[in-house]
């Protein structure tokens, strides 16, 4: 028979390890805050924040496609052929335009291969970019804002009212109207637009 303190000690340490893993090894801790360096020091804070460019100028197919496309270099070049063309920060962009090679952006948000998230259906039904991506317009370097775990998705799918907003405010990341009861607004929109977010597995897993 082992001494009692050994048993208690093993159980305690085991329990702490288990608890630690289940709590800290979740997307909430492993993903949130991931802020990789990008090949081009593109600042969303300047473009989307200070300059007030709409998200859809670059992520142009977000309302059409499941993917919110990362813009082609050509899109950068629309402006930067005139603006700060010779800045060393834009060297990779110029190179890409000249050679036709892609800029290898680092992926920040990644859902597993077996999950099929569709951007278009969310932005067309009153869910804002900010609800998943955070205040990108205030980020110099894009950072992973929300856990994007399945339970996090389901939280909203089960009670979408808090997240619904008028369709013209979807890309307005700073939208925070005074005197608006988000719950009441959400309930009204949910009813008017017949929103029943799917909860069956097949909605995302195919």
């Amino acid at each position: 028979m082992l001494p009692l303190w050994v048993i208690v000690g093993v159980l305690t340490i085991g329990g702490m390890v288990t608890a630690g893993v289940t709590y800290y090894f979740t997307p909430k801790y492993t993903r949130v805050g991931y802020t990789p360096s990008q090949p081009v020091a593109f600042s969303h804070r300047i473009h989307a924040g200070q300059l007030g460019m709409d998200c859809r100028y670059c992520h142009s197919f977000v309302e059409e496609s499941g993917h919110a496309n990362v813009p082609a270099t050509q899109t950068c070049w629309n402006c930067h052929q005139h603006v700060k063309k010779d800045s060393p920060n834009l060297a990779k962009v110029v190179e890409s335009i000249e050679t036709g090679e892609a800029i290898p952006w680092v992926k920040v948000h990644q859902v597993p291969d077996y999950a099929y998230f569709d951007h278009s259906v969310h932005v067309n039904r009153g869910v804002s970019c900010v609800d998943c991506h955070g205040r990108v317009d205030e980020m110099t370097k894009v950072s992973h804002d929300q856990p994007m775990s399945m339970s996090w998705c389901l939280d909203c799918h089960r009670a979408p009212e808090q997240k619904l907003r008028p369709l013209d405010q979807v890309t307005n990341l700073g939208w925070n109207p005074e005197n608006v009861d988000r719950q009441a607004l959400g309930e009204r929109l949910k009813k008017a637009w017949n929103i029943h977010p799917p909860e069956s597995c097949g909605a995302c897993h195919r």
Partner: protein
Amino acid sequence: MSKRIWEHPAEQPKSRKYFRSLGELDDTPEFREWVAREFPQGAAMMADEADAGQSRRDFMKLMGAATSMAGFGLASCRRPESRILPYSKNVEWVIPGKALYYATVMPKAGGCTPLVVTTFEGRPTHVQGNRLHPESNGSVDGFTQASVLDLYDPDRARDFKQGGKKSTRDEFLAFLDAHKAELTAGAGQGLALLVDAVPSPTRQRLLARVTAKFPKAQVFRYEALDFDGARVATEQVFGAGVVQVPHFSVCEKIVSLDCDFLDLHRPKAGTVSRFMNGRRAMKPGDSMNRLYVFESRYSLTGGMADHRLRVHASQMMKVTVALARAVAAATGDASLTAAAAAVKLEGSYKPRADYDAFVAETAADLVASKGGRAMVLAGPQQPAAVHALVAGINAALGAYQVAAGQSVPALELQQQEAAPAGTLEALAQAVQAGSVTTLAIVSAADPCYDAPTSLKWADLQKSIKTVVHVGFRDRTATARAATWSVPGTHYLEQWGDVRSMSGVYSIVQPMIMPLLGGVSDLEFLSLLASDTPVAVKVEPVAPAAPMNGAVPEESKDPGYLAVRETFAALAPGEVEVAWSLALRDGLLAGTRWPAFTGALKPASVATLAGGFQDTAAPTKDAFEVTLVPDSKLWDGRYINNAWLQEMPDSISKVTWDNAALLSVRTATELGLDKYLRDEADTLVIEVGGQSVTVPVIVSPGHADHAITIALGYGQAGKGAAGPGRVGEGTGVNVYPLRATAATYWLAGAKVTVPGTKVPLATTQEHHTMYGRELIREGTAERFAETPAFATTEGMDSHIPPDYTFYKQEGRQGQIGATGGLFGTTPHLWDKQHQWGMVIDLNACIGCHSCSLACQSENNIPTVGKRQVIIGRDMNWIRMDRYFAVDVEGGKATEGKEWEYAETSGAVAGGADENSDHAGGHGSAEPARELDDPEMVVQPVACQHCEAAPCETVCPVNATVHSEDGLNLMVYNRCIGTRYCANNCPWKARRFNYFDYNKRANTEREGSLLDLHPNNLYLGPLGELKEDASLRLQRNPNVTVRMRGVIEKCTYCIQRIEAAKIDQKKTTRRQAAAAGVSDENLTVTAEDLRIPTDTVKTACQLACPSDAIVFGNLRDNNSAVSKLRGNKDIVGDEHGVDPHPRNYQTLRYIGARPRTSYLARIKNPNPALLAASPIEKRKVGQASAHM
């Protein structure tokens, strides 16, 4: 409450038994053992003690290695960095994540298959038919479906090779310039071109330019399976370039003399659907066409026949003459009488006791529909004499006339543009005469492998000084022996044009830049015809680029320029507009071959028929060997296509091999094993001085003393010298048996049984239904009397309503609705969509197009021959092929002599007066059931049961129901217990035993770890697939499954979800267009319903006979609601009634499958049933219930 026990009902005495394999029919112990295993696939691995020990030891070694590797793995515990690579310059029309569709055609000998190709960011992933094309009903055959995989084949031609050594494009072009200079000096003396039989106007034009530049050059045409009989016959009987187009839709009676017109490789202008439209039997009493088939082996067409007679391929002339005499007598056609009399026959022939009555009634039935409503078709492999005599019969029947009330004749004659070219024989003679010094082979054919042996082509080709081979496959004997091997392009990456079978000018447009920078046939001919040096030529630019007009003319793809030039001459009006329209539609509207206006020349019929050399019927000392195109590899060109290799043959269910098909009687005589498990007996066949050893499959319904073997397999060589990683070592080459090109059968074969066995993978006993019959069939007469016979007889007639063991109450929330469906199954709460499928067994021919379309759409892996043998094939849709025989009291008689107990007397009595007939069928022997069974087919996939047995047994809820009625399979939850697969009554679930998608399925010798010879068994230590190119084919909207998960039919949920999402977006867009502000936007539940029948599954679109109907059961207007009925879904007062032929399989289980079937209807000839007791037993009682 005590547990309800429901035993499977005892098998009731039946007069008819449906079976897939002879083992199942005779209920052998081996078969019982196979089906009784809990996990048949897994148990097969532990077959004996020695194996089991071996496996355990391997397992321990693997685990040890894996554990140590895991230790290394942990050292780099970091988030993997992945990259996004956007375009540098935006590409027109491309929206990342959205599919783009382009029209094109797949060129084939004699025509093309019109297509719409799905591309994702420039990658073609899936093809479907082009409904805009007059020759397509929007379906696609299996060959075309699988051709997408060929594009990404890592073993396709990639390098320029000179004498087998790697070279470059520049070196080749330099050689070409120098060689052209030489040739020009001699006006092209010694130059010969060998092309295939694709009717491309641009190629024809370029060939003319080449011959204009080199006046002494000669053009030859070669296809390994060049069915010359029909061409020669129509040329002599009607005129040069005349082709005969059958219009099945206007025909009441069709007779096929060895003509497998439902076979799908040859471009046949939507034949299947048009034939089916004549026999849909949508209402009781609807008229149906009647099909008589005379053939030596079961074919798809034979399976659809209302009456079928086994006739040796070589004896078809005797049947034709008998038919001609009868038709001539009935119609009083003197010239046909004369033509029939001109044929000199060798001995008499009586394939069955009721033969005379059979032919007489067939002829009488034909004559009853004369004048444009009846036709006779002769098989393409039959000689010209048979075709000529058949043309005479057709003329007598008035098949070339337009019947009253119709717009087309039964057989339309069209005048094709002649494209003169010599034959391979002529080329061989020229080579022997030394008049060919340079040969350019621009063809998919492989004459070194498949040319007739009498030519000794391989030696001849060596004697030619310079041979240039341009082809998509260079792992062929011909390409290897060539001086220069030039990598060709796949049809999905080249410009081109084809005249379809009826003459519609169709455009081949590229979907992608040549992956490996090949040279298309048009480009090669342009280079050859070019007057300026070609070596300085710039690389062709992206095919999309010419559209914006910014690309200089000289840097455009020469294939594109050549096609544009041809097009400009053809297109009416504004060429640019016509071109854009043609690219969009895939064809130039209004183009067609003109009608042939001449008439039949009876004298030529008699002359051709009179020149026929008949042979005596085969006997047990002199077998007949019939060589047929393979149902998967065609002439062998698809040998390296894993999808096709693994697709079971429609009739024999063999995968990865060809085999000799024999009748049951002949196999018994030879003492061969009838019960194929995983090893087959072999047979040595000696004929014409050649000998081959082939595995045997016993095939009920085959002619006696005859052997059928498919061509195309057994391409020699290993590794880099072989046909490729997939095709290496598959099957047996039987081309050496062919002495001349026209040889499709050989008489006087000697067979011996060496007693050896070889492994052979067939799927006919896989996923067996334990004798529970899923099939229902009846005759037209029965359907008229009892329309709902499929659900009102047998077990179906006394099933308690709403009975189920698999209750779903309370398994999901959202209860609230009451009544109808919702009372019992609240988990199906979606009021807008409830999905269902109906498969019409009357239309299904068993061709496997659906399985291949499913494979392409749903990223289904192939597993290889060894895995198929142990029952691990992965196809989501399996095609069950049943044979049916009459039995007494549901039991085989003693000794398993399946005799006609009651009819044999009558037959014997009738046979007395004919007892002198020659042939292999001694009249002393009574006809046996297995000589001549019926054949029916049924595709089975997941049935999406409302009360699904699989869902109740999953311990981790990995298979659950969605609110819109789909049985979901959640791969990321699955832990691989396989309980669901075990509890599925339809055996519709497949398990990923290995990482089939990721790891190469190769047998290795002396591998590094020496743990297991098969790479798959090394698990995570196994090598990954060597070449990533196959990944490009994958559908990005479907998960690529990994090892250890179950998968099955999803009703193409990716298409359903995409449509739902589109509908949600459309609602907003419509509101915006109508000026409704977002603020005031209201969306009703009804607005969110997908428009009727806009979601179609891959199998549905691929089905050539439109047998599969999928749709929304919540929508009364949908096609599926009208067939299946939806009162169980929407309530009695709102729904529509089912079609009378609609039935659910295994209904007594109460699983309530969402897939239902329409019973099959046969349309036998009452006069023939009265005249022939055999046909009466065979067809007259066609029925099955359980």
